[in-house]
């Protein structure tokens, strides 16, 4: 599978990364090189193999339902690039 320029743009759009026109051919080459490299996995027989999804071979612990966090709006908002009142502000979204 090889990526064409339209696909490179589509992926960038999905990843929300603006690409300049001249970046597309370079990225196309690099991404295709990586995809070409990983292509060798097609040779592995994986019939009946369950995928390994996580790094830890354990089951999940659960926490008790207690309020232990929150109540820190100033800390939550301290790094905001645009804060208005106690809200994060972004350019107006039209739904």
């Amino acid at each position, binding site marked *: 599978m090889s990526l064409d320029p339209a696909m490179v743009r589509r992926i960038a759009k999905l990843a929300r990364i603006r690409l300049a026109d001249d970046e597309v051919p370079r990225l196309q080459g690099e991404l295709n090189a990586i995809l070409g490299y990983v292509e060798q996995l097609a040779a592995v027989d994986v019939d009946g193999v369950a995928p390994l999804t996580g790094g830890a071979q354990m*089951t999940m*612990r659960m926490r008790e339902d207690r*309020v232990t966090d*929150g109540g820190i709006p100033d800390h*939550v908002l301290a790094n905001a690039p645009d804060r208005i009142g106690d809200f*994060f502000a*972004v350019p107006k979204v039209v739904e």
Partner: protein
Amino acid sequence: MSYTIGGETGPWELVIGLEVHAQIISKSKLFSGAATEFGAEPNSQVSFIDAGFPGMLPVINRECVAQAVRTGLGLDARINLISRFDRKNYFYADLPQGYQISQYDQPIVGAGTVEIELESGETRSIGITRLHLEQDAGKSMHDQHASKSFVDLNRSGVALMEIVSEPDMRNPEEAGAYLRKLRTILRYLGTCDGNMDEGSMRADVNVSVRKPGEAFRTRCEVKNVNSIRFVMQAVETEARRQIEVWESGGVVEQETRLFDPARGVTRSMRSKEDAHDYRYFPEPDLLPLVLDETWVAALKNDLPELPDAKRARLVRDFGISAYESAIFVMERATADFFETVAKGRDAKLVANWMLGDFFAALNRTGRNIEDSPVSAKNLGALLDLISDATINGKIAKEVFEIMVETGDTPGAIIEARGLRQVTDTGAIDTAIDRVLAANADKVAEYKSGKEKLFGFFVGQVMKAMAGKGNPALVNEALKTKLG
């Protein structure tokens, strides 16, 4: 006969499935220790986890898992002892992590059913496909500023159950009945408050149409409908739109639409959908959720009586009609109220009073059964006063209205206002004598055969006694006196 919408080319059937997002009742969020209360100050119920800060990790809340299991059990569904979490990736201002943690192909609850009752008295079984756990997003406000949207993350990370039905409903009534029944079950279980205007229950409606006997045609999803009435309207509106598309030679395309209740139309959200490729993959910050069978059994053991069982029991134990019972069990509090009043009393009388004056009073005053001005105890006391002939039925209605207004006990009202029924035959005789004397002409007419006048005499006597005469005694004495 089955429900159809008539088009130019003949009748069309509707096929409806619902995806309901129900906010789980819990103190803290699904993956963080921040509080979940509705209506808090902006960003005051937000942890760094909920705000998607670097290095923050989710840890699951046991109670939210328990609530999902309880709901699954209440829907008579399979509980999956192993389930998994996945990330659903998309960018949005109120989705801080850039993904929603959800369950994609291994949900916590599998297939189940909900029984619905229709106005015709018929019941139908609606299949539940699955129920899964996921996080809610935050809230964007677009009307606070000329050029900016404001983001409040208080809701971000609150636990939701997405309950997906089979496409088993065939008309708007069934969709409405399903939602109502589901809400009743969730409220009984205490897993969701079902409050649609606060957004704690929202529905996505899948609608398609077909000619009778056909296979399914393409469906459209109408997103985020926030009342039962709107769901029923959205079904019909969307079905009519699709029929028009098909009949004009067009093809219905699978898409997400939005219901506009003000204009009574659905419109396409396709622009938004284009960019979406959710790239689900297993959430690597969480491990498989493995439930202990004995824990699930204990939850099952502790489940409250559910509406269907309660309805049958009320009929069996109290001898009320299935119809009356169905009304009482719609809300657990109503059924509890009925049971409290009916215990040791004439259940039929209790049912009549509740379905009549009592519900009317609630409606009129805009109150819920939980904060009813007339408590179960006071209503019971009022009915007792009728049974022991302290007051008659007519006075009881008067007393009841005063109870609604003041919240006082019926005993106090009767004493304070001297409404006790008169059973003193001497007083009754005196009143009758006075009435008969004042209406000698009518007495003569009665005696000459106009027996219809008996009611007139009863009325006059009761009036003379300010309504407090014991009706049976008045009748009896009148009959004697009139010969």
